[in-house]
């Protein structure tokens, strides 16, 4: 590690230079969070040699590399998502969605599914955007369909799937149709069975200071909130990727039914970003095409990182019901479209 020596100096630099971060006056109320933070930082700097030793073991190195990798890859998309969601909250007039979204939920759901194609980002961005839509009065059923469809059918994902399966455009068609089908099914299912009391949306304050203040406030709040849950998901995904040996997969791959289920479960566990899961699916060569399709349809719908973020955005009671429903719908749609296309 060539940068070791410089890191602590840089860290001190990071915290020290920009003036606004370290306000001098703190109001007394026991151990305030700024003091707790300062203590943690001092501890982090003094314990650094110990940390380096602790993380010198190859397993720990591999774990932390994966953990940091998931975070560094996902944060920009999360920032994009919370910025979009904050812009929707702050700048889009409330009646816009009443006009733009069809009145009847049964019709709004498929429209929202197709509209998902316009947000060219992965699932980390679509969760906060869906939260903002619900808060803005869009029917939850339509917002959830948008949330599920967008990371699966947007142009970036379609192109990367096309590249990952060269000479195999049926795979792209199967992926898009299966994802749309499952997303619309979930939307209709929510319209029939969903209860609003399962939802616990974090409230945003109304701002007298104007729209920009509301915008920055929403970004700060949503990033801190969803980011914290993203970290939980990243830690779980890194643990599973590092600790579950790949040799467990080989005997399962030969069975057509088990193969589909195994890759569907794998997609939940490894939490790969939807923009790249096609490449990973393509490299799982022992498995059947339908199993690979299931991997790509389930991943953007539900995985450990997403479940944590959905619990944070919509509440735990919602997540506990939504996650299994999304999983079953995704697997069923993948099997169906696999039979049609592959």
């Amino acid at each position, binding site marked *: 590690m060539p940068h070791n020596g410089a890191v602590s100096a840089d860290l001190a630099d990071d915290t020290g230079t920009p003036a606004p971060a370290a306000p001098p006056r703190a109001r007394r109320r026991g151990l305030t969070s700024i003091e707790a933070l300062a203590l943690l930082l001092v501890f982090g700097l003094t314990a650094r040699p110990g940390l380096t030793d602790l993380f010198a073991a190859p397993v720990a190195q591999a774990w932390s590399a994966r953990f940091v990798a998931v975070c560094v890859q996902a944060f920009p998309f999360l920032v994009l998502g919370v910025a979009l969601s904050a812009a929707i909250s702050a700048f889009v007039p409330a009646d816009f969605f009443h006009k733009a979204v069809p009145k009847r939920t049964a019709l709004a759901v498929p429209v929202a599914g197709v509209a998902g194609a316009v947000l060219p980002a992965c699932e980390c961005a679509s969760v906060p955007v869906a939260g903002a839509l619900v808060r803005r009065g869009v029917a939850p059923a339509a917002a959830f369909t948008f949330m599920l469809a967008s990371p699966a059918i947007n142009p970036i994902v379609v192109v990367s799937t096309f590249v990952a399966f060269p000479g195999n455009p049926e795979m792209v068609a199967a992926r898009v149709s299966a994802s749309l089908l499952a997303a619309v099914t979930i939307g209709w299912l929510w319209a029939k069975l969903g209860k609003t009391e399962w939802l616990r949306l974090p409230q945003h304050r109304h701002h007298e200071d104007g729209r920009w203040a509301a915008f920055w406030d929403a970004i700060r709040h949503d990033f801190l*909130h969803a980011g914290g849950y993203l970290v939980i998901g990243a830690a779980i995904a890194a643990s599973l990727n590092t600790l579950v040996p790949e040799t467990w997969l080989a005997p399962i791959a030969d069975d057509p039914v088990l193969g589909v289920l195994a890759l569907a479960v794998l997609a939940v566990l490894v939490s790969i970003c939807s923009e790249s899961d096609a490449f990973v699916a393509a490299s799982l060569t022992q498995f059947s095409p339908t199993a690979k399709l299931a991997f790509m349809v389930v991943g953007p719908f539900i995985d450990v990182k997403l479940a944590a973020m959905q619990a944070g955005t919509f509440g735990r009671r919602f997540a506990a019901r939504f996650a299994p429903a999304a999983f079953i719908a995704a697997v069923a749609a993948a099997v169906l479209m696999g039979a049609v296309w592959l």
Partner: protein
Amino acid sequence: MRRDAQAVVLLLVGGGMLRLAWTGDYLDYVKPYAFWLIVPAGILLVAVAAITGVQAWRGSRETDDGHGHGEPKVAWLLLAPVVGMLLVAPDALGSYEAERTGTVLGAEESRSSYPELPDDVDPVPLTLLDYAARAIFDEGQTLEGHRIQLRGFILYDGDEPQLARMVVSCCAADARPVKIGFDGEVPADLEPDQWVEVVGEYSPRQGRDEINGELVPYIEVESITAIEAPDNEYQ
């Protein structure tokens, strides 16, 4: 969590990302194009931190943050990736991972023809994935008659040293190795994770990766030279 602590956390996350971009260490975790995602996101987070800090400094906090309990405690967890990025700074994945993961070839599989290698370059530098695909799916037809140069790190499959490189499609969490065996005389003192430049010729010999049963191509070794690890260790 109070406003001023929030500002510090946001600054640390944003600053940590900008630092990875500045030092180039981000290449240990994500693809090169991610630079253009990390930098704007980092700048935006630092801006949010600055605005939050100014608000806190002016004391313009609305009492108790609106709804009693302030911001979610879960935000403290954002310090974990900060510790990871700035203090632990793990290296790129290497032989430890590669020895536990099956070799990849999948994505290159169904290409129907491979372009001829240039005749005026000797040896011809190839990526490990390209060499493996040409050797296995094209039976080495385009490799015959050329000296090939490969760069990767060393790993051990049992007692047998192999050349490997991690292939990353999105971020290091999905890294998978592509492995190539050595045919012929190999120095006995190859250390795992040592980066080497191998010059050699196509060998028809093939083995199997025990982990996932994929084919592993071989190269007839002419020379193996130790080199520095490249900036981007992934492919």
